[in-house]
């Protein structure tokens, strides 16, 4: 494994570890799962759906709007599940590598918590939606294969971080949205609570690894920045799932997806969702301004 070429990651994680321990909850008993979702409530905040702010939303019947919030909530939670599985598998492979020995204590908390998140998201989807949307297909040959091991390592942790930050934008909002059913609000709230620690950790690891990239070969940093900008755009794209449009009874799902992705109101919404992450990447020295 190429991780041996990475210099040991050394971070002060005492506070995050203490928070993980003192804030520990039993995910299997913390939620009260109702038999059915309360009727007449959106499952996802209406202004977070992928058609919010566009004429395409206004053209839907009220019934279709509710259906869209339902299937986009299932899509959002499905993305959480697939994203968690991907990031957990990366972390599991590294937890006892020499480079990560200094942070393995926190990684144990991380893996445990992520496994629990995956469980409650899947439970919600299967119990109330009767399904998960399948994972997006991936290719093994990727656009970063030519980069150094340390740059690829920085990208892996940046992907984890970006995924968590985007998801957390939604969680944080829905955690307090009183229009949502209680169980949907609670799941978002609990996830948000844990993710703030994971985001803090992810940022620290990324900054360390990016520093190693810059030290080894500064010319690689713009390539990392370019990949991450593409990954941000890709991540936004996954929120627009034609299968969710079809399930909500909306015709021409693929054309609708394209129109929605390009709509000025949505571009503005994307900027809002990505604002915090982009600011962090710029401050860390891997922002999109480096892309030629």
């Amino acid at each position, binding site marked *: 494994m190429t991780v041996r070429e990475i210099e040991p990651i050394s971070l002060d994680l005492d506070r995050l570890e203490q928070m993980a321990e003192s804030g520990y909850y039993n995910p299997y008993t913390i939620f009260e799962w109702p038999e059915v979702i309360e009727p007449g409530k959106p499952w996802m905040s209406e202004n977070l759906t992928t058609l919010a702010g566009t004429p395409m939303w206004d053209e839907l019947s009220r019934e279709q709007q509710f259906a869209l919030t339902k299937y986009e909530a299932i899509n959002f939670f499905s993305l959480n599940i697939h994203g968690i599985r991907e990031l957990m598998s990366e972390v599991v492979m590294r937890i006892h590598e020499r480079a990560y020995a200094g942070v393995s204590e926190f990684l144990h908390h991380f893996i445990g918590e992520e496994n629990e998140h995956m469980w409650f998201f899947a439970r919600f989807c299967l119990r109330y939606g009767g399904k998960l949307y*399948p*994972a997006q*297909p*991936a*290719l093994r040959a*990727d656009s970063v294969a030519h980069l150094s091991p340390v740059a690829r390592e920085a990208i892996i942790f940046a992907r984890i971080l970006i995924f968590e930050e985007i998801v957390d934008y939604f969680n944080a909002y829905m955690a307090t949205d009183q229009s949502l059913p209680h169980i949907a609000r609670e799941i978002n709230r609990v996830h948000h609570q844990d993710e703030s620690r994971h985001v803090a950790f992810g940022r620290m690891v990324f900054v360390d690894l990016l520093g190693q990239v810059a030290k080894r070969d500064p010319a690689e940093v713009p390539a990392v920045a370019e990949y991450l900008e593409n990954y941000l755009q890709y991540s936004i*794209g996954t929120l627009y799932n*034609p299968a969710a449009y079809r399930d909500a009874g909306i015709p021409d799902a*693929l054309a609708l997806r394209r129109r929605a992705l390009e709509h000025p109101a949505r571009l503005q919404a994307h900027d809002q969702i990505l604002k915090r992450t982009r600011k962090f990447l710029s401050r860390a020295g891997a922002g999109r301004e480096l892309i030629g």
Partner: protein
Amino acid sequence: MTADPMQKVRDFILERNPKIGQLAPQMDLIDSRAINSLAFVDFIFLLEELTGEGIDPEDLDLDDFRSLNAIEARFFKQKAAQ
């Protein structure tokens, strides 16, 4: 079906890889990273739109996407012959 769907396929790839210049019909689009993981989902959606048929993500055969020749044979020639 669109008049020349293969042109739309070529446009999609070239738009994302302006440095390629020309696309040979047998070029390996995956190994050459002309289509990478981040573009693959949108590429599948494009093919769904052009063929009017869904592609099940859990039932993908990557060889169907390897080259322009393979894409044409799998998604467009079969349909045209029907």
